[in-house]
């Protein structure tokens, strides 16, 4: 593809000089605009963004140096070549100091102008290219993705490269890595962007309905088919059909899909005629597709039809600082939605998030951030607000000043005196009421012992004698006792108490509410 002609802005107030320059430039195949004043040049530099500016220093309204400063201040990045009759060293030095790339003394020959301009344009092109490449290498957003890590830059480049093609893309990656996001990005970056993007989760559709979901059906095709129904294949005509969890597709359906992929034709369930559509296939799985082929669960011929361009999404644990980058964006988003005022994460909290392996990837991170925002309020997310599992994963010494919570102590285990007691010797005053969040209706937590304490784990157990067998009580009583004990141990931090009990925080709130209502 040929490059558009370079744009040259000629700033020259003397018509003869301007005519000479224009005549000398004519053979170079450049597009020229002529400004006779500095003011006109400023306007033209915006309306006709030039690649290079040939600038006379002595202009009627203000000096060429002043014009250079104004041009740079306005973000004009063109290569500026100063053209002057004053061949002094001082002028040349000042021109370079102001950002000129070269300097021509009038009168000049065609060869001199050509060489100077060609060099300047080449330099400018290289600078622009470098800028573009740098911008591409440091992108922290790409369509719906957030992430600046090297593995994600590779993902962005692959998506950009493959988008314009019609080739099928096979996305692999652990659950929560953004496979559907990648499929959407491929679609949005493609010439099909204005046409439909239809996503179908093959694992979420009952086997019997999958064929109808993909290809549609005609009225009466089966019991319950009371009307004609257009399937995903037809809906995606001209656009992209995303088949998620394709590894879950039954083998008999794979045969039909293979035919569709090969021919672009399909037959709606119960129909006598085939239909032809123009669809680009993107599919995804969190399994190893080749292993699925070897295990006989995925047809080899279909695999080779679909696995044209593989796109492997990295797990969050391999994305360096992306976890923190994503968490910050999610925090701002959750803040807006939940009416909170968090400004960011404490450094220790960010360290913990970066150290955690995130087995559930971005989806898990989303849940954690949402959980923190829903259950807490403040300006800074502290490590104490994070689920304990994150803190356990943090490297030792990584959370300066923040003790990593111990594993929940089980009464049956002979305990060793911990370095710091799990519970304060005295019933601690509740911390700044971490659960009394504005806008979140919840009962006041019971004071440390507003009623008979059901269960109070001893702060320190020194004797390794076997504990007595627990007294059998009604389940509801045991449940209440355990929940209150967990709250006592976490100093009324509902999120951490829920994590210790391996239940949802909302369950704790619900229980507290019901106990309060019951008096």
């Amino acid at each position, binding site marked *: 593809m040929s490059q558009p002609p370079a744009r040259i802005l000629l700033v020259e*107030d003397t018509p003869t*000089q301007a*005519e*000479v320059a224009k005549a000398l430039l004519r053979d170079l195949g450049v597009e020229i605009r002529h400004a006779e004043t500095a003011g006109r040049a400023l306007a033209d530099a915006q309306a006709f963004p030039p690649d290079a500016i040939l600038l006379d220093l002595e202009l*009627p309204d203000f000096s060429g140096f002043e014009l250079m400063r104004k041009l740079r201040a306005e973000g004009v990045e063109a290569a500026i070549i100063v053209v002057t*009759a004053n061949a002094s060293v001082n002028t040349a030095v000042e021109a370079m100091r102001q950002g000129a790339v070269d300097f021509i003394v*009038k*009168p000049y020959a065609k060869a001199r102008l050509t060489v100077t301009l060609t060099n300047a344009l080449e330099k400018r092109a290289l600078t622009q290219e470098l800028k573009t490449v740098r911008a591409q290498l440091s992108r922290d957003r790409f369509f719906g993705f957030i992430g600046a890590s090297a593995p994600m830059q590779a993902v962005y480049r692959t998506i950009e490269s493959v988008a314009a093609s019609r080739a099928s893309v096979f996305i692999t990656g652990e659950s929560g890595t953004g496979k559907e996001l990648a499929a959407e990005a491929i679609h949005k970056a493609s010439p099909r962007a204005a046409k439909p993007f239809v996503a179908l989760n093959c694992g979420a559709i009952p086997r019997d309905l999958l064929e109808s979901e993909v290809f549609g059906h005609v009225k009466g095709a089966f019991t319950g088919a009371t009307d004609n129904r257009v399937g995903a294949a037809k809906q995606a005509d001209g656009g992209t059909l995303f088949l998620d969890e394709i590894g879950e597709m039954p083998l008999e359906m794979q045969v039909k899909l293979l035919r569709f992929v090969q021919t672009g034709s399909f037959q709606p369930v119960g129909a006598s005629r085939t239909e032809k559509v123009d669809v680009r296939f993107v599919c995804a799985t969190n399994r190893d597709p080749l292993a699925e082929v070897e295990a006989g669960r995925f047809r080899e011929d279909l695999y080779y039809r679909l696995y044209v361009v593989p796109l492997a999404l990295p797990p969050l644990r391999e994305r360096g600082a992306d976890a923190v980058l994503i968490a910050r964006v999610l925090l701002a988003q959750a803040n807006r939605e939940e009416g909170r005022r968090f400004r960011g994460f404490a450094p220790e909290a960010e360290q913990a998030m970066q150290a955690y392996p995130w087995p559930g990837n971005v989806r898990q991170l989303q849940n954690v951030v949402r959980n923190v925002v829903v259950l807490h309020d403040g300006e800074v997310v502290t490590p104490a607000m994070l689920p304990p599992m994150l803190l356990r994963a943090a490297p030792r010494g990584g959370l300066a000043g923040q003790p990593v919570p111990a594993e929940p102590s089980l009464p049956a285990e002979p305990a060793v005196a911990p370095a710091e007691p799990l519970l304060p010797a005295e019933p601690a005053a509740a911390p700044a009421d971490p659960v009394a969040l504005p806008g979140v209706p919840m009962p006041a937590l019971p004071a440390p012992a507003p009623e008979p304490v059901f269960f109070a784990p001893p702060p320190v157990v020194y004797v390794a004698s076997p504990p007595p067998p627990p007294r059998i009580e009604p389940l509801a009583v045991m449940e209440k006792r355990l929940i209150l004990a967990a709250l006592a141990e976490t100093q009324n931090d509902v999120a951490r108490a829920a994590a210790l009990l391996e239940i949802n925080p909302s369950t704790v709130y619900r229980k507290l509410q019901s106990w309060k209502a019951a008096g």
Partner: protein
Amino acid sequence: MIDPDATGCDHFAVHALDPSIAGQLAEDLPRPDFLRIIRTFHDDLTRLTAELAAAVRQGDARGFQRAAHSLAGAAGAVGALRLEAAARRGMLGAEAPSPALAAQIGAEAQAALVALADLIA
């Protein structure tokens, strides 16, 4: 030869037109382009010498300098060295415009045009 201050240009030693500049232009450019330049130069001289004369009549030193500056630029473009030198002297004068200098610039402009006409003949 031209001294750096353009004050001592030897009228008899310097041609009205420097062949290395005007000749180079004529060589580098298609004839229509070269002719367009000469026409533009002619227009510039006509307009600027009139502005010089008006500045002399009105005692407008600033206007005189401005016109002299433009004349120097135009002259330099086509290699009209004597005209350029005279115009540069006009650019330097901070006091009242000099009728004598204006007359000399006008004469040099005529000489340059004659020389250019010879070149394109």
